[in-house]
């Protein structure tokens, strides 16, 4: 198995989950992940990628998702967020999810990526590599991000 194939099998699912958390169970998720791995394949000899393939992949997935959302103007139009919601889910689940997306939307880029990757159970070291936040500041940034997120989530419920 080549080096690239190893990276693909090891990180495909995490990248997919990250994209799904940002976009919902949308059909575009598969396409976005495919695009991410194609860019990885084309740059597979870059030193940065060889050193930290996971961090690169998470960042690439995140920015591809953000680009997609920007194209769709979804970040500015909250009403359109409901499009990303899976119709097989119950109404309540959909409400919860659109509330989560709205709350996520209020965070800064780095904080948003941090929150999504934290929910993947990544270590602080991995979080620092992927977000570019200094490893010693992860605890501080994370607690601040989660506090903001919690506050926004509560706002949505009220």
């Amino acid at each position, binding site marked *: 198995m080549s080096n690239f*194939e190893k990276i693909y*099998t090891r990180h495909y699912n995490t990248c*997919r989950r990250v994209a799904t958390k940002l976009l919902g169970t949308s059909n575009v998720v*598969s396409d976005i992940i495919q695009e991410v791995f194609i860019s990885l394949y084309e740059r597979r000899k870059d030193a940065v990628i060889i050193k930290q393939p996971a961090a690169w992949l998470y960042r690439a997935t995140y920015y591809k998702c953000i680009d997609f959302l920007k194209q769709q103007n979804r970040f500015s139009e909250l009403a359109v967020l409901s499009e990303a919601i899976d119709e097989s889910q119950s109404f309540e*689940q959909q409400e919860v999810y659109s509330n989560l997306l709205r709350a996520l939307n209020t965070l800064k880029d780095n904080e948003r990526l941090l929150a999504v990757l934290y*929910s993947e159970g990544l270590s602080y070291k991995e979080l620092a590599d992927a977000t570019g936040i200094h490893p010693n500041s992860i605890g501080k940034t994370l*607690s*601040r991000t989660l506090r903001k997120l919690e506050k926004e989530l509560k706002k949505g419920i009220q």
Partner: protein
Amino acid sequence: MRCYNEAVIQQYIDKEFTNEEMSLIEKHLIHCEHCQNLAEELRERSSAIKNLFNQQLISDNERSMPTFNPPTKRLKLSHKRIAIALIAAATLTLIIITNNHKNNTQSDYILYQTVEFEMDANQPLSEQTFTMQLMDQNGKPIDLDSQHF
């Protein structure tokens, strides 16, 4: 002893300290109700947010990982490239045609047909005769026996 701030407690519940640091904080927590409550609060918050994110994945879990097909190298065709290719093709065709034409004129014969004969219309066709004389383009008669057709 001073209480820990939220960042430290967050890092503590995520178990991101060294063993020594962890036991130091634990020792403090035993005696400090305020920090205990904070740790509990942050633990609940973290797991609630994690759960919320992961709920979204439930309907996506059944999908299996597709095999990766490496991209094939595609030649990008710009207008400039197409134009150059067309010009090259046209020039090449022209050269081939001119060369062929030059070669062919050497062995070509043009038939200047002048038919002069007298015939008796009352004679049957089988008894009529006529002679054919071939000439090259300079008017020189061609000897049919010496030519290979």
